């Protein structure tokens, strides 16, 4: 696994799919997760997501993502537990109670967020940003300027993270202890570092824009792209599968 949002090379099915088909599948998959509250279906979606991660050798980083999502989803889950008095009464609260329905809603939220995040996460790691933007231009007819802006934004995230790391290392060498004290102290120590980071970010972005311009950025058209991104049978299959998952998720709401 490389740095944050840096392409991981490989030859898995997910790597080989058309970038547009990959993104659309991941989006349909995520929407499907939000269209149903059926825990069994969501658990199955989570299993599919983990299967996809295993197929492209990204299981370990995916567990890392799941840990991060768990922190956020636990907050939501606790909120749901305390504010959704549904089902058989388990614990009494001054303003209501925690019921079996509350627990189910909390668990469903956690599983839903975990399942929805995995395919989107995988797509960004198994697709080169240049392929994603070029395919968006060729297949979806997205104006190149917007596609390039998106690709550049993602491209610069690890660059800026590296810059921040370097600034923090430099400060650590001067005696600042980022690894001691609570979160408030850490934030207080890091806040002033945002200024040099902002300055270097603006400078880098400006240099990058100039470098792109002197390499003919303004001349780019949809036909300029050297690579073609035709949708093959596997891509259509992925799209149909994504649509079927969404349809199934919606249909589950109408089951008795």
């Amino acid at each position, binding site marked *: 696994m*490389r*740095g944050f949002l*840096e*392409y991981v*090379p490989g030859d898995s099915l997910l790597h080989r799919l058309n970038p547009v088909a990959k993104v659309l599948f991941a989006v349909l998959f995520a929407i499907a997760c939000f269209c149903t509250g059926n825990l069994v279906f969501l658990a199955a979606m989570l299993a599919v997501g983990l299967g996809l991660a295993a197929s492209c050798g990204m299981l370990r980083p995916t567990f890392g993502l799941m840990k991060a999502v768990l922190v956020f989803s636990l907050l939501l889950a606790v909120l749901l537990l305390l504010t959704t008095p549904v089902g058989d009464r388990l614990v009494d609260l001054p303003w209501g109670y925690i019921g079996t329905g509350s627990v189910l809603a909390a668990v469903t939220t956690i599983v839903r967020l975990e399942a929805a995040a995995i395919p989107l996460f995988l797509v960004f790691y198994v697709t*080169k*940003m*240049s*392929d994603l933007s070029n395919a968006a231009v060729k297949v979806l007819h997205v104006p190149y300027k917007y596609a*390039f802006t998106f*690709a*550049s934004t993602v*491209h610069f995230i*690890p*660059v800026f993270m590296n810059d921040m790391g370097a600034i923090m290392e430099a400060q650590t060498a001067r005696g600042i202890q980022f690894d001691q004290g609570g979160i408030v102290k850490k934030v207080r120590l890091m806040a002033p570092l945002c200024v040099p980071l902002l300055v270097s970010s603006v400078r*880098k972005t400006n*240099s*990058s824009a*100039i*470098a*792109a*311009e*002197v*390499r*003919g*950025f*303004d*001349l*780019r*058209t949809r036909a*300029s*792209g*050297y*690579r073609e991104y035709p949708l093959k049978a596997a891509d259509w299959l992925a799209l149909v599968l994504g649509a079927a998952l969404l349809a199934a998720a919606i249909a589950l709401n109408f089951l008795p």
Partner: protein
Amino acid sequence: MIQLRDFCFRYRECSQPAVMDVNLDIPAGSFTGITGPAGSGKSMLTYALNGIVPYCYPGDFYGEVLIDGHDTCDTSLTDISRLVGSVCQDIDSQFVASVVEDEMLYGLENFGVAHELIPARVDEALEAMGIADLRDRLIASLSGGQKQKVAIASILALRPKVLVLDEPTAELDPASSRQVFLLLADYARRHGTTVVVVEQKIALLSEFADLLVIMQDGRVRFADAPAAVLARSEELLSIGVNCPRSTTLMNRLAAAGLYAGPVCTDVAQASRALLEVVA
């Protein structure tokens, strides 16, 4: 190929010009080195050649800069870019792709090079910089020297008439720096490309350049063949430009009346001359 006539530029937010009274004639196919102390206007001069000034930085532009007969003020930045390929100082900012091959394709695609010609252009540029084996590598996984070569190769693939490089060996060790210059000089000779390099390593410039330009406080202090410029090693030292040590040594021997031969620009020349002096 390149003419600067009374060129002067002042950034909008500055009271003093960054460069002034610059008059230079750079012949087609030549290799020109520009050096000077920090803040002497070296990078500014490259901005004038590749059109970044006046198009990207606002300010007052005086005089004229002609590239292959085109006045940069009357030519769009895109049209200047068709003539002049630029490798900027911060190469990490230049990269737009995550993989070497995609980086090579970027300019070729933008300039509308016929798709059937693109593979040959990419192969040729990668081979010219000796990095054909890096084609499928992630740029983030490359060393500083490899990144530098990728940045140069991506510009060579565009086959510009003029190649402008701002400190292309800033992060390289002496051996890698010399290798980059060797590859550049070889490519330029085979393609008739005019090369303008801003560089701090004056020994490299004196070895490869036909014309050596020394900048000081925004002005051209010297512009001549390297041997003629290096003959003034004491003056160069006084403005903060260190000559190669072999040159300084031989110039001092000459000043003491012990050596009367031509200026030595490298160690090999100096060692031969020293043997003559000792004999």
